[in-house]
């Protein structure tokens, strides 16, 4: 088999209340901190001035934090860095918030700021805005993290065009839980971009 053409330049994992970059812990808080407070702590620790962060839902916040950390490690991102994301529950958190608002029998309210986030790919939009990426985006819905699909898909996308870098992974954020693994892929790097390596990384923190 040919040597892999692409490599993982950095990766960020957010599991419940721990954030790690390339296996090194960036932040670990108490397990009983709410998701909102956990993400806020991460934002403060990042020490960036980006007030738009506070308007985002938890899915977008988690994605933004991960993208920021990888940018510091293996960035800056090229403006045509492809975004290839996936999860299981789409934009469930915001969907639920919007539905609760409009179906309230006493005081039905449709909040535009909530509705804006009722799509999973808004997270791609948010990091595109933050890092000025004018690139190709896709968001898949799978039952579980599926490197068996994402690796050949990403490789084919990168082979096809002049773009040679991508950010991909799995971003399943629940009301209280985080199961996020994002990685920055490029031509060079320490870890080969293969199904076996990604499974190893994804499972090593179980």
């Amino acid at each position, binding site marked *: 088999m040919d040597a892999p053409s692409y490599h993982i330049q950095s990766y960020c994992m957010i599991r419940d209340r721990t954030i790690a970059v390339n296996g090194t812990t960036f932040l670990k808080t108490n397990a009983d901190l709410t998701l909102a407070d956990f993400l806020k702590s991460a934002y403060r620790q990042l020490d960036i001035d980006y007030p738009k962060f*506070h*308007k985002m839902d938890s899915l977008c916040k988690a994605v933004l934090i991960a993208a920021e950390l990888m940018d510091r490690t293996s960035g800056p991102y090229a403006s045509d860095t492809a975004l290839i994301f996936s999860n299981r529950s789409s934009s469930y958190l915001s969907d639920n918030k919007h539905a609760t608002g409009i179906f309230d029998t006493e005081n039905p*309210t*449709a*909040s*535009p*700021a909530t509705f*804006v986030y009722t799509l999973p790919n808004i997270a791609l939009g948010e990091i595109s805005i933050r890092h000025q990426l004018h690139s190709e985006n896709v968001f898949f819905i799978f039952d579980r993290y599926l490197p068996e699909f994402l690796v050949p898909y990403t490789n084919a996308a990168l082979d096809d065009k002049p773009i040679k870098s991508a950010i991909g992974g799995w971003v399943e954020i629940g009301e209280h839980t985080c199961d996020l693994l994002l990685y920055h892929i490029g031509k060079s790097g320490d870890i080969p971009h293969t199904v076996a390596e990604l499974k190893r990384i994804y499972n090593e923190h179980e």
Partner: protein
Amino acid sequence: MSELTEELKAKIISQLNLEDLTVDDLDDNTPLFGNGLGLDSIDALELIVMLDKSYGIKLSDPKEGRKVFETVQTMADFIEANRK
């Protein structure tokens, strides 16, 4: 009047998730959009919802909002003139 502007500032901060601001940070005459606070079109829509829910005033044209939402003071003036 100043009670209304203080109330508005608190509502704006909470409704628009302006986490890093306190009521004291918001001046009555700071432009809310553009270079001032940097609010965007979605924030304007949220303020329209707030006008309706908190003060019973319906704005059906988002363009009308631009004049009304220039500053906290212009919002307070508009509410005083139109509240039910």
